[in-house]
């Protein structure tokens, strides 16, 4: 532990500032889309009301549960490695990967269902935003899974410990951010349109 933050466990301040600065750019990337959503939602309320009913609310809810649970396993993994428990970290990372794979699987089912009903990004403004926002979010899930796969390889080699867990900590913050985006996407797209 460095002396500038004796009480804090986990990553050094510089690493935390770095990832939070990155998350700021991510917030504004998604923020642009949320702004577009807000504008069209205000200008075409009837279109949004009518189109959002075509989404599968059950699958959306299931995906919310999967992603929230993957955030839990990630947080537990970080708490474990802070105590130097490498085996628990490996189990937590594997569970997080499985849950995120489940999320993408359900996303695949949903998009297939939409396509089979003739709903495409160019169908209307609502579906344009729906595909763009869930697609960009899905890309972030894929990226998170790639990083977690790499973390799992490093964890197997025993590279993380109570003294050094920075990559796990930083990936965790990114992963919770991806969860945060979905926490807003879910009600905006599936519930209130």
């Amino acid at each position, binding site marked *: 532990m460095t002396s500038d933050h004796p009480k804090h466990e986990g990553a050094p301040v510089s690493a935390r*500032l770095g990832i939070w600065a990155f998350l700021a750019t991510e*917030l*504004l990337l998604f*923020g642009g889309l949320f702004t577009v959503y807000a504008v069209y939602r205000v200008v075409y309320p009837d279109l949004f009301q009518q189109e959002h009913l075509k989404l599968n609310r059950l699958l959306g*809810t299931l995906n919310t549960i999967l992603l929230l649970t993957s955030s*839990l396993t990630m947080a537990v993994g970080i708490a474990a490695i802070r105590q130097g428990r490498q085996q628990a970290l490996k189990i937590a990372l594997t569970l997080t990967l499985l849950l995120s794979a489940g999320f993408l699987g359900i996303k695949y089912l949903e998009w297939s269902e939409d396509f089979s009903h003739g709903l495409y990004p160019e169908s209307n403004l609502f579906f344009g935003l729906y595909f763009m926002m869930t697609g960009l979010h899905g890309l972030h899930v894929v990226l998170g899974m790639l990083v977690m796969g790499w973390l799992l390889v490093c964890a197997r080699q025993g590279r993380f410990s109570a003294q050094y867990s920075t990559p796990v900590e930083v990936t*965790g913050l990114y992963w*919770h951010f991806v969860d945060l985006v979905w926490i807003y996407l879910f*009600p905006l797209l599936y519930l209130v349109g």
Partner: protein
Amino acid sequence: MPAYKNYVVVWVVLLLLTAATVWVSFLNLGLWNATVALGIASLKAVLVALYFMHLRHEIKLVLGFATFPLLILALIIFGTLTDILYR
């Protein structure tokens, strides 16, 4: 050990809030539907940020890095919406 327990409690609350927001979406409350949905989403976001992202124990500088972009985003959305509504 207490860390794990806290996380599980937060997770259960997050699931309960998800159930609540889905339930409310089936009621017809007019404009209140969107308000309640966004309110519950924000409550969930705060829980994730404070507990899972450890902002509860974070130093002021990092807290600033985490919250300042939210202010910028709020300004962008507020500014754009007022322009659209009062043009």
